[in-house]
């Protein structure tokens, strides 16, 4: 699970993601006026950049297999691990079904 880029052309260069990320994942390219997801491997999946993204350029994904192994359920959960949040309102059916 980590932050993902949904659409770089939507990045308006507001730099919110660079500001709020506690894990130093984001950098900024001042020439292109775009953020850079420089270290996704250090993303803690907190979603702060996602909710602060003014251009709606970012998403949260579970597709990456790099999630941490929790204390239990190591093997059984892996195949279920496909919750993808991209744009607001675009969630997989599974997540939607969970929440009333």
């Amino acid at each position, binding site marked *: 699970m980590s932050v993902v880029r949904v659409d770089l052309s939507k990045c308006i260069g507001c730099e919110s993601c660079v500001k709020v990320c506690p894990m130093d994942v984001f950098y900024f390219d001042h020439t292109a006026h775009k953020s850079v997801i420089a270290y996704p491997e250090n993303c803690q999946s907190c979603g702060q950049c996602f909710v602060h993204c003014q251009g709606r350029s970012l998403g949260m994904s579970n597709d990456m297999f790099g999630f941490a192994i929790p204390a239990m359920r190591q093997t059984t959960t892996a195949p279920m691990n496909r919750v993808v949040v991209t744009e*607001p309102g675009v969630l997989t059916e599974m997540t939607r079904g969970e929440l009333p």
Partner: protein
Amino acid sequence: MENKERKPVTKELPRPASVPCPYEARYETDVVVLGCGFAGLNAAVTARESGRRVLVVDKGRPGFSGLSPWPSSFRWFDPEKDDADAFRRAVLIGGDYISNMKWYEEWITDSKRIYHRLRDWGMLTPFPKPQEAGDFFERQDYAGYREAFQQLDRHEKWVEVLEKNGIPFLEYTMVTDVIVEEGRVRGVMGFHVPSGKVIAISARAVVMAMGGGCYKPSGFPAGGDTFDGEYIAYELGLPISGKEFEDSHGTSSVAPGSPFYYMNWQYLENIWPGGGDASQDNLKPFIESKVNFVVLGRARAAKNRLPASTGKEVTREAETNALRRGAALGYETDPDEIRSGKLGSPLPASDTHGGAIGMSSHLTGGVLCDLEDVSGRTGIDGLYVAGDGMHASYPGGASYPCGRGFTSCFCSIDGDHAGRAAAAFAAEATLQPLSEETVAERTEAITAPLRVERGFDPNWARDVLHGFMAPYWVTISKSEKVLEATLVQVEYMRDHVAPYLMARTSHDLRLCHEMKHKILSAEMKLRASLYRKESRGATYREDYPYRDDEHFLCYLTVNKTGEGMEIREVPVKEEWTGDREQAYEKRYLCYYPGEPEARGFHVEPPRWMGGGKKP
């Protein structure tokens, strides 16, 4: 390039080769506050209000880093309404008789004042929940909801408060060294992470409020905290306590490792005030439900080798708030009571233990100060500690069931006290700037990983350490054999991995320092867990599944000595240990798996089974 030709940029760009640093290389101040969560912010403002020059340093951006962006409840005590005695008894019993009642008393007397302070700062301003505000919840429109209430969002208030109080701050700056000479603190050093610039700050007094840590965030958003303060304190010879008491937060097995999956609304909604939930009438069920929920459920689940649920359940805070976090009970008819009512939006349950492996149970981890102290004074002149994971203040005892929901409040009180004490110290102390030799020597050490040519990637080391420490048989259901075996692995990492961590960029440099700190922290955890041959609060030993009052009504501290780590016992004050004459099964209301059998008494199976069902 592409931009000049006005072609859209659609491919992720590379990390810029260099980043400018907005900060100077040297600073001088009266009080430097390290870390700016609830503890650090309160320390900084109180020290500033006392007339001192204050400088704040944080590894992230204040309000968005550490644990403080996340709480959903803020529990405080109302002396005009609440029953202090009921609360004291609850925490004494629920904390397994090692609660620091002096600090708990500070919550009783000070939390209302602190509540008002945070409310005035705009951090507890109520605004409609997503379900009430429109269709944000239905559409899962997190960003839209945040934008709609941006003016009220508490996270932005941290920087606002610092600016209003004239407190300068250095962001994205990791402190790696606190410099002590002749028993007196002299200053701190660290580096601006994006640029790698080394920064030295000379100060009269230092408040460390850098939180605790975890090895790898795996569902609980605690990744910015990585035991940096604990490491520094240990190296300075201070006693580190609470390592054996495990954090109880979980993750969802549907989306393990993702705090976003089940904490997003919690982050976006306002913090709900709570409290007033314990009384003489409900004391027994109050304690039982809390201890079962926070502590014993996971021990049973581990013992049964099963997760607690399917991971797809949804927790409806509105129905369970009184149990989960302590909204006021019995005050429903009181129109002025703001601490009752529903807490938050429904959220997916965290059914799997292991959200923040390595973290200590709230308020147990960190430096153990004198038991008479209520200022966070360490043994070193001018050096103070405050907050979760940094200061072993133990107001909730061996875990925090009966203090659940008061950590953010308590850290604020803790920081306020440390800030006041540090300011008073600084008012009398002289400033002795850090010498050029010291700065040069420390700079060399701080940047050393950048000069390692062949070594280990800190991300690899992180995953290896997490792999050793994460299994439930290491942290939840402990035993001698497993702890010993894991210790061998961690010692190996200490000796053969930590010295060869390699950085290519200043981002990596941060990771290398963090890794070194995590390895030390894991060693402390294992040694403390091995030493405590009993079960108490948030440490459960499968091979000693009972409380051993004769030997372990004490705090353990891990200390640096010439021969390595040494564990010492600090007895709990007699008056905090409850009625020692009481029969065991009356003295302790809830039992670990295997405890009644080991102690030779019979109890009906717990009505409230937090853990999984037996197959």
